[in-house]
């Protein structure tokens, strides 16, 4: 039972983590809570649906294509909506993000209609049963690919100059160009990766929970944001750990405690974590010297 639940938690956690990464990366660089991110994830799901149903593509093509297309969408959103606000107060940008999110939801609603859509089975389902324990090949693929992507990203940010530049920008953008950093390029890159990962998460949600609708990004988006914060927003490792932790808490609290209180328990735990670690699990408290 516990092993079974752990696997379920891992699957849900991978998805939260992938989306949380986008939140965290964008936050890390721009100090912007990109509330549109959950909706970008939703667009990712629809993009994959489109590629699969209308263009009949296999999953191996859909993943990279959706990654790129949605990455481009992320870059465009940044270009049009956030870049003009880079020097504006932070709250204006957050509100803009809320606006962009609302726009993405309703435009999808208006264009493809409110009816939920069946996400095609891109991978033939195999159920692997070992005793009382069952796993599906989809679960395993989701978990494996997510972990691979996250590890790659973590390397990128910790070890490469681009990664270092991303972190530098989160501290200060005015002086960064003095060291040859092309701020716009780094920010676009960040958005591309963040949105691309959200698209991957969108596809995975389609595979694991194959019904999608225009509002699917809201709740998952908020939860991913919560994951990012639990881990320490702006921190890649933190986002991953936060995602898995949230997945685990949700599943385990529903599994072993009255499920009616699930939300109360999950968010209560979040409060407690933040009470004891106000900057999240991996967040370094911002220390400015006095």
């Amino acid at each position, binding site marked *: 039972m516990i092993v079974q639940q752990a696997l379920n938690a891992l699957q849900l956690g991978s998805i939260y983590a992938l989306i949380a990464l986008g939140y965290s990366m964008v936050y890390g660089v721009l100090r912007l809570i990109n509330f549109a991110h959950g909706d970008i994830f939703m667009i990712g799901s629809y993009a994959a649906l489109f590629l699969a149903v209308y263009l009949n593509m296999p999953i191996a093509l859909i993943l990279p294509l959706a990654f790129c297309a949605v990455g481009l969408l992320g870059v465009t959103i940044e270009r049009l909506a956030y870049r003009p606000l880079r020097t504006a107060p932070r709250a*204006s940008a*957050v509100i803009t993000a809320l606006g962009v999110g609302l726009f993405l939801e309703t435009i999808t609603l208006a264009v493809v209609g409110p009816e939920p859509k069946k996400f095609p089975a891109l991978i033939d389902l195999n159920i692997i049963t070992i005793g009382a324990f069952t796993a599906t090949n989809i679960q395993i693929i989701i978990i494996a690919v997510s972990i691979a992507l996250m590890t790659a990203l973590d390397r990128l940010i910790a070890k490469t100059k681009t990664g270092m530049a991303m972190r530098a920008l989160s501290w200060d953008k005015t002086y960064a160009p003095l060291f040859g950093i092309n701020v716009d390029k780094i920010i676009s890159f960040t958005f591309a990766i963040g949105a691309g990962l959200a698209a991957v998460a969108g596809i995975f949600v389609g595979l694991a929970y194959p019904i999608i609708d225009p509002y699917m990004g809201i709740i998952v988006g908020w939860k991913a944001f919560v994951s990012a914060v639990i881990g320490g927003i702006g921190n890649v490792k933190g986002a991953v750990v936060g995602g898995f932790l949230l997945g685990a808490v949700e599943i385990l609290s529903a599994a072993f405690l009255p499920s*009616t209180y699930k*939300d109360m328990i999950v968010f209560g735990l979040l409060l407690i974590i933040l009470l004891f670690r106000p900057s999240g699990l991996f967040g370094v408290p911002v220390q400015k010297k006095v």
Partner: protein
Amino acid sequence: MGLLLVAGFAAAFVCDTFNLADQYLAQIIMYIGINVILTVSLNLVNGYMGEFSVGHAAFMAVGAYAASFFSVSVFPQNPAFFPLSLFAGGICAAFLGFMIAVPAFRARDDYLAIITLALIMITKSVLENLPWFGGPQGYHGIQKYTNLSGVYLCTIASIMVIRNIVYSNFGRGIIAVRDDEVAANLVSVDTKQVKILAFVISSFFAGIAGGLFAHLIQFINPRTFSILKSTDILLMLYLGGSGTIIGSILGAAIWTVLIEALRFLGIWRFVFAPVALVMLMIYRPLGIMGGREWRLFIPKENDHGRKK
């Protein structure tokens, strides 16, 4: 000025007593009033203190449920007791604000956003599980005690109180926390006290707004007070421009009227409205008022004809 206020109240009172106003118009005006209270009070925390709280829906919910509980089950069913119920609702909300101010001392910035988000989820979950208030089926049997004059009085009161606080020593403390919390501490501003104060006052008025809302709609359920309610209030606040009272008022009024007036567009108004909002933010990042306060809301003793 004082005369104007009295005249406004008289007008509202007459409309109520003789049922003069068109009911629909009255309803919208009352929504605007309630939204102004919500926005102005959120402004204290998000605008003047510079935090980013998204918890207003929770404070509103507590105010709404508590005030309803008092008016339905505690006090006699009589409009005369309504102010008491309303006040009780405000107090309950303020208490919750006090509770949340404590973790807010520790977390800053966007962590506060998360804490308040959690607060909404928890409040909603509690309301869904509490048997006395009907759970998700909602709280029924609330009387219609909210009327134009009540909303008018509460709106004016919240604006005046918040204006008077902002332009006082407490207000300077609140703004100092926004500008530089560490430095504020080191020039004797008790930042803990300031935060409690801002949160308690802000949530008190959110609670009042909740009570008014409940006794206007006469039915409340947990879903009404979801995160979407908070985002609405946030949109109104930053649309008008945070950090000014006139901005909050304008933001609340414009958003309420716009959504109502464009109702015939159906889905499409939620396609156009966000685009308009984003454009506004780009061209006026500080909102419609652009951070400028209306002279009326600056007390005489603080008005220096603000050189640009």
